[in-house]
């Protein structure tokens, strides 16, 4: 099958090649206009020409004349025969004059001319042109009104020209900048002119779109794509690009779930995970909602033309020139199987040719206060004590007994209460202890000792410029971050070296070299470790430091009464001390990433060019965790492997000696490459027909390796460890033997992709564009039945530039108006599914120590891509000189063959099976509007609004109601006809006389906790977990050099379940203390059902009763909010009045995370931070952070 499919692509490529050759032959002696010839020379030699239009008009030359060995020769051939001359102005800049023109009849330096010509009637004018930041602007065309005299600025922005006495003004024009006319008099000698860029709100500003394979002019791109420029990214001064793009793109949802910037809570790559692992607890991102149920949901990231497997934090945001967001099929399907989630195309900055070095330096510092622990709704000490007494009274905790080995640990008050019950302490002593405990609130200590105000700094340095045949952009940045968790730190160094070289005067070689180097330290004690419900939950009356100033230790593994008897038998101290752990932690990670690109572009013939592209991305991660003998980990392990002695002192069975520790190492190594050959064709025929085609083939390999090992008895001084046997179990304290964990493993996963792709667009009269793309992918793990992977992914689109139609030309208020329509299909893959019986290799069998493997899933010979069909209708508009501009898109998405596991009969050996089985449909719209509310020289107000709506619906009747659904409706599987993130809840009917939750059934009868629900009518559809309506609003006010800006984000239409009690202890689950404040309101005795809805802790169905309470309508809260994300003030320092050395400088002050301006819920909850005490990463809402920044350009 593949053969059949690949052949046509080869033929297509050959045809393109032959067409290119033959075209060239037939066109050998074709006459072309001189203007066209000059354009070609300009392109070929990267030169700029200044001339009056009139002098080249109606003149021709031949193509043959352009085949010169040098620029001089080409110009001579083209111009001399037309009676024209060329004058050298500066490097890469020439002026073309008529041979008759006497003024510039010699090829001389302007300065010399000036010296010669001071006595003439003409007057001499010189000066300098700069951009808005004071950087010299080369190549600006300078033209006077009196005569047709023109000049261009040189590499330093300097210019000089002679003007006739009649000249009253000269005009400075440059692409991308507003043309500036300046009045001159005979006395004017020296001019300093700063050009301002074409207005920020103009659509022309977003005039190209890169899809990673090619750069297309925006007016010829049919797809829904949006490009963000560097200056928009500069508005938010964080070291990670993720926070910067949060509010910029309609339809892009960035969820920031922690205020760590690049020091994520999980910085480790999970080699066996099929989806993104790094940073998942800190942020997530989606473009146009969900397109997959079980595949990767993160958009594909393309950096400088190559798919990147690295996290976005490896990119220095200051290096980014632009980011394109490809949203629909026409924009993204060129990326084939990975495009269904949308594509983020990042392009880094380049230098410009013939430009003196531009140096830029910036420093940013931010501080934020400690987060508020009070946000975690916990019980007070007194309430906790009452709860524990109740648990003991109701026999929900079994009696701890110092005489019994291996008893579960219990909290202090529980212990005392049992002792009182057993009579081993007096009521007086008990009451005294309780009253002492009741007065404590340890959260203050926790906040003081485990949290701190967070801060971060960034330093950024860049230099760019270029010569005649090369340009460069080099940058380096250093950032460091100290998040609010004490003991956690992160540092980052990035280096970028971008170069473009002109080779043999025709080819272009671009190189990008990037490096990012991270260093992390991770705290061994997080808030989550303290508060997550367990037998050793840090109770509100537990202290880190007691009244005498001593650090307090707690028993963690076993009941303290028993543990206390062990130390005299030769065991190590078995208590856990939070602050000691913090001091002893030695947990660090280094990560070095390198990426390098080579892109060779060779123009083959008019319009034809060929590209060869190679990218290599390598990453090396090393994390080590050293547990010295003071750490709890070490002591716990040694004690665990110390059998109880019948006589004499206990000896640990592993044979660890004092003075040593345990070192665990984890090495991660990534090596990905892409090699691509591509042909490009871009030409215009008879002025009206514009054709752009690319076709190419690409191979890609990703390699990820991870090695893990542990060194027992490691001595930091000698570097020597003790050899241990991982497969012969060692005797433990419990009497049986267990193998040691940490046997060395090394995993290496190599995956390969092969693709063919082509993309073509045809534009007629600059008004009507038709586009199409096709891509075929092959992936090594989708390998058994080739018929399933031979389906190409394709797209097609049309675009109509309405504003260019004659009937609208008269409507001067319409600056631009485009209509777009596209349809196509994007793909998605899973890297964890296989067509053959998936036999996963394990390290060693736990029982026998033999190497083992297991059947992970039965063979799936029909495995194929997930496909998402996307239709998009869009309009781009600009009115009143583009003072009001925006885009509007409406789309539908239809997912087919999506991966999902459906339950199957356990008789087949597995209880569920992942197959390309389900479908999903979605739709939405996006809207962005930008307006210059007020615009004058000194005062300017600009506002922008982004809005997006997205929803989806599961369209598979197999998602029917079943018993599993009724037992966990809020988090249960999908349901046909409902969105993937639906929340279904029970109708709460209060508590019954035994304190258990009742719910209403479909008929409105109260159902007790032990009765099952069988009808969907007994449930309520509460809404969606992700907000369907979201976006941002920004406005900026500029007065002279002072700019004030505000950014707000909003979301509407989502719901969430209020975090509440996660679990009560039971005989089976053992002791487990949850501290949620709802516990204080629970049912404790008959009659309480009249005053509370919170179920009691006792009873056979207490767990089900609690679950029904958690998932009932009374706990549904609205997730709507408006968040004030940032307020900033920036000031352009008037350096030009002080020094010439500094071109420009600006100072900025911004305040981030100002909190919610409005929220729908009355409980004070931030819908982005609703994880309860049970969450694996406890997230507290970001504290307000204050940022200071200084930018200087030399």
């Amino acid at each position, binding site marked *: 099958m593949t*053969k059949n499919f690949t052949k046509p692509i080869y033929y297509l490529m050959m045809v393109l*090649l032959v067409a290119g050759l033959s075209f060239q032959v037939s066109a050998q002696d074709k006459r072309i206009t001189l203007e066209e010839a000059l354009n070609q020379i300009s392109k070929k030699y990267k030169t700029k020409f200044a001339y009056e239009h009139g002098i080249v008009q109606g003149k021709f030359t031949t193509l043959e004349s352009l085949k010169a060995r040098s620029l001089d020769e080409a110009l001579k051939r083209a111009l001399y025969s037309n009676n024209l001359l060329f004058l050298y102005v500066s490097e890469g800049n020439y002026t073309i004059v008529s041979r008759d023109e006497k003024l510039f009849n010699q090829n001389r330096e302007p300065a010399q001319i000036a010296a010669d010509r001071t006595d003439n009637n003409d007057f001499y004018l010189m000066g300098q042109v700069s951009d808005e930041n004071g950087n010299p602007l080369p190549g600006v065309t300078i033209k006077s009104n009196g005569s047709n005299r023109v000049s261009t600025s040189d590499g330093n922005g300097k210019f000089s020209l002679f003007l006739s006495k009649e000249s009253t003004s000269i005009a400075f024009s440059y692409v991308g900048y507003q043309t500036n006319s300046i009045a001159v008099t005979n006395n004017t000698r020296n001019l300093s002119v700063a050009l301002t860029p074409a207005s920020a709100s103009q659509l022309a500003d977003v005039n190209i779109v890169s899809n990673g394979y090619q750069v297309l002019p925006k007016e010829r791109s049919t797809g829904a794509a949006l490009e963000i420029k560097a200056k928009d990214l500069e508005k938010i001064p964080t070291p990670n690009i993720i926070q910067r793009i949060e509010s910029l793109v309609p339809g892009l949802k960035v969820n920031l779930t922690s205020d760590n910037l690049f020091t994520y809570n999980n910085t480790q790559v999970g080699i*066996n995970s099929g989806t993104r692992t790094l940073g998942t607890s800190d942020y997530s991102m989606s473009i146009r909602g969900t397109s997959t149920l079980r595949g990767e949901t993160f958009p594909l990231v393309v950096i400088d033309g190559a798919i990147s497997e690295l996290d976005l934090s490896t990119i220095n945001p200051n290096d980014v020139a632009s980011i394109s967001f490809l949203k629909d099929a026409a924009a993204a399907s060129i990326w084939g199987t990975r495009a269904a989630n949308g594509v983020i195309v990042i392009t880094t900055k380049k230098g410009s040719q013939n430009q003196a070095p531009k140096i830029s330096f910036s420093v940013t510092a931010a501080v934020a206060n400690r987060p508020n622990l009070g946000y975690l709704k916990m019980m007070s000490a007194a309430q906790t004590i009452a709860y524990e007494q109740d648990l003991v009274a109701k026999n929900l905790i*079994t*009696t701890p007994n110092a005489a019994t080995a291996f008893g579960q640990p219990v909290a202090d008050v529980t212990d005392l209460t049992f002792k009182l019950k057993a009579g081993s302490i007096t009521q007086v002593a008990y009451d005294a202890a309780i009253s002492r405990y009741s007065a404590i609130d340890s959260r203050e200590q926790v906040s003081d000792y485990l949290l701190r105000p967070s801060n971060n700094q960034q330093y950024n340095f860049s230099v760019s410029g270029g010569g005649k045949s090369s340009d460069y952009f080099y940058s380096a940045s250093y950032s460091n971050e100290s998040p609010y968790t004490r003991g956690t730190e992160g540092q980052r160094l990035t280096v970028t070296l971008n170069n473009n070289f002109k080779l043999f005067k*025709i080819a272009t070689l671009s190189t990008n070299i990037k490096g990012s180097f991270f260093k992390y330290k991770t705290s061994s004690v997080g808030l989550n470790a303290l508060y997550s419900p367990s037998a050793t939950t840090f109770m509100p009356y537990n202290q880190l430091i007691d009244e005498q100033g001593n650090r307090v230790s707690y028993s963690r593994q076993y009941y303290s009464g028993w543990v206390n008897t062990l130390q005299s038998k030769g065991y190590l101290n078995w208590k856990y001390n939070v602050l000691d752990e913090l001091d002893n932690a030695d947990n660090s990670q280094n990560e070095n990433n390198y990426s390098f690109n080579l892109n060779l572009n*060779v123009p083959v013939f008019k319009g034809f060019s*060929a590209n*060869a592209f190679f990218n290599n991305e390598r990453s090396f991660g090393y994390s080590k965790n050293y547990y010295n003998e003071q750490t709890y980990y070490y002591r716990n392990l040694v004690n665990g492997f110390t059998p109880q002695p019948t006589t004499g002192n206990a000896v640990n069975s592993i044979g660890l000696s004092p003075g040593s520790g345990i070192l665990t190492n984890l090495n991660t190594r990534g090596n990905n490459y892409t090699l*691509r050959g591509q042909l490009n064709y871009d030409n215009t025929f008879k002025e009206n027909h514009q054709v752009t085609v690319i076709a190419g*083939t690409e*191979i890609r390999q990703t390699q990820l390796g991870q090695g893990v090992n542990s060194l027992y008895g490691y001595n930091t001084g000698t570097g020597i460890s003790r050899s241990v046997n991982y497969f012969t179990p060692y*005797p433990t304290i419990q*009497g049986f*033997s267990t193998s040691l964990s940490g046997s060395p493993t090394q*995993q290496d*996963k*190599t*995956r390969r992709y092969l693709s*063919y792709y082509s993309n073509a667009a045809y534009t007629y009269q600059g008004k009507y564009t038709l586009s199409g793309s096709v891509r075929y992918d*092959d992936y*090594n*793990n989708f*390998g058994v039945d080739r018929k399933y992977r031979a389906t190409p992914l394709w797209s097609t689109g049309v675009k109509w530039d309405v504003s260019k139609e004659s009937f609208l030309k008269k409507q001067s208020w319409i600056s631009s108006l485009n209509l777009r329509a596209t349809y196509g299909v994007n793909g998605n893959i899973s890297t964890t599914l*296989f067509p053959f*019986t998936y*036999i*996963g*290799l*394990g390290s060693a*069998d*736990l*029982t*026998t120590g*033999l*190497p*083992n*493997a*297991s*059947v992970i899933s*039965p063979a799936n010979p029909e495995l194929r891509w997930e496909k998402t069909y996307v239709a998009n209708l869009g309009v781009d508009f600009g009115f009143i000189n583009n003072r009001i501009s925006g885009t509007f898109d409406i789309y539908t998405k239809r997912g087919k063959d999506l991966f999902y596991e459906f339950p*199957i*009969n*356990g*008789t*087949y*050996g597995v*209880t569920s099976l992942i197959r390309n089985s389900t479908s999903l449909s979605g739709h939405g719209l996006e809207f962005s509007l930008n307006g210059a509310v007020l615009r004058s020289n000194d005062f300017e107000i600009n506002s922008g609004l982004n809005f997006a709506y997205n929803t989806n619906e599961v369209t598979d009747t197999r998602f029917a109601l*079943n*018993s599993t659904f*009724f*037992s966990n409706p809020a988090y249960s599987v999908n349901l046909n006809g409902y969105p993937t993130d639906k929340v279904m809840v029970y109708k709460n009917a209060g508590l019954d006389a035994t304190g258990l939750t009742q719910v209403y059934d479909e008929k409105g009868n109260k159902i007790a906790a032990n009765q099952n*629900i*069988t009808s969907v009518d007994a449930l309520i559809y509460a809404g969606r977990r992700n907000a369907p309506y979201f976006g941002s609003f920004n406005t900026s006010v500029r007065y002279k050099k002072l700019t004030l800006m505000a950014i707000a984000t909003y979301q509407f239409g989502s719901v969430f379940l209020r975090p509440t009690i996660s679990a009560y202890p*039971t*005989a*089976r689950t053992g002791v487990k203390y949850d501290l949620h404040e709802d516990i204080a309101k629970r049912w404790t005795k008959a009659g309480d059902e009249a005053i509370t809805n919170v179920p009691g802790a006792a*009873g056979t*169905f207490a*767990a089900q009763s609690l679950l029904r309470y958690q998932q009932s309508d009374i706990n549904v809260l609205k997730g709507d909010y408006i968040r004030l994300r940032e307020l900033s003030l920036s000031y352009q320092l008037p350096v030009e009045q002080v020094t010439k050395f500094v071109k420009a400088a600006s100072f900025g002050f911004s305040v981030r995370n100002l909190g919610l301006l409005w929220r729908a819920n009355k409980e004070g909850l931030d819908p982005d931070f609703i994880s309860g005490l049970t969450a694996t990463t406890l997230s507290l809402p970001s504290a307000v952070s204050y940022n200071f920044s200084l930018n200087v350009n030399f």
Partner: protein
Amino acid sequence: MKLKYKVYGFLFATAVLSGCKKYVDIKTQGNLVPNQTINYRYLLNNTSGFEYVANLADFASSDININDAAQQSSLSGTQFYSYFTGSYNWQSVIYPLGSTYEQDRNWNILYATVLNCNTIINELPASNGTQADKDALVAEALVHRADAYLNLVNTYAKPYNTATASTDPGVPLLLVQTVSQPLNRASVQSVYSQIISDLTTALPFLPITQAFNTLPSKASAYGELARCYLMMKDFVNAAKFADEALKLRPAVNDLSVLATVNTSNYPRRILDPEILLSKVPLDGTMAYSPTAFKLSDEFLTLLGTKDQRYTLFTTPAATISATFTGRYFYKERAIGETRNEGPSVPEMMLIRAEAYARAGDVSNALLWVNNLRVKRFLPADYVALTATDANDALVKVIDERRKEFFGTMLRWWDMRRLNNETLFQKTYTRAFNGATYTLPPNSNRYVFPIAEYLRQLNPELAQNP
């Protein structure tokens, strides 16, 4: 022009290089590709993929009697234990459809073993390796599959009855690893025939010894055959294969020399010379509150207090929980390992004894019983058993089976196969949380129900009465 040719050459090279579809014909590590025989060795080494058997039968046995209110309320304090109480009280519904615990994990784990075995049996022959290696590995898988089906048929189908076996519904007999075949129940006879066929096919290719008891050897297959024929009441064949097993593995752990047992003086399960094939029940050890097995007074009387199995393998309630009373099964905690439910040397000896008793050979029957008992008492306490007649000998053999195998499912299997023999017929009763449950002879409750959840997915899977 020259440069152009170079460019075309380069592009062509790139296209050819990348166009080769062999480029993607590589395999990603970590996912074993089923084309190497050694990979199936690794699969068979996965103890947890083959070792688990059902634990439902263990609770239904008459050896245990949970009559402390404290333990009863602990067990009924959470829905999680409903499988325990459901089986213990011989309920007709154990996994109620719609509850959180509607899946029959016992059924699922046994069929997971069947899937692993079927994958090996059917996919291995196409792999690259020597025929001898392939035969040996397939043979191991056949033994595991036979054990799984023997467990299934003795849990979810009627006891074997020669007259009705070919019509009594057994369990679905899956011999290939597809996920789309119908799940009609094969007859009890078909299941037993398959078990015997699997074991006899495997026998010639099995090794005499294996490094661990988790890996089937010849003795394992003989043991399974003896057990299987015993359940079919084919005592001649049962005795024949028990003999074969005993020829290879005659050793019995000598408890007569032990004052206490612990991990250092009692062999690990995987190396225990008594165990012919290590199998452990789902959920592992049941030696902790609230699921610890409280032994019935009737059984304790039978066991007596002089027996080393009483001294070493039972414990007073205080060790389990302060609020429990009586005496508990303690072997698992004493030896630090989950109880074995696979065939063992003592089982072979007692099968041998039963066959003699059934054949009327009283002296030989008691010879085998006493061969075992001599290892189970301190020398001072040992008294050889005698019997008055064949029936008495048979009763003594069955009683000895109870004493040797208490805490495992073998007692329940014996209750099933003996409940239509007048000599052993008895109505059992349980009192639990104020209700009384009875199990009369020939009751339908000798067969565990099939979870409704499974029937909902495949209605062709018929329920038990």
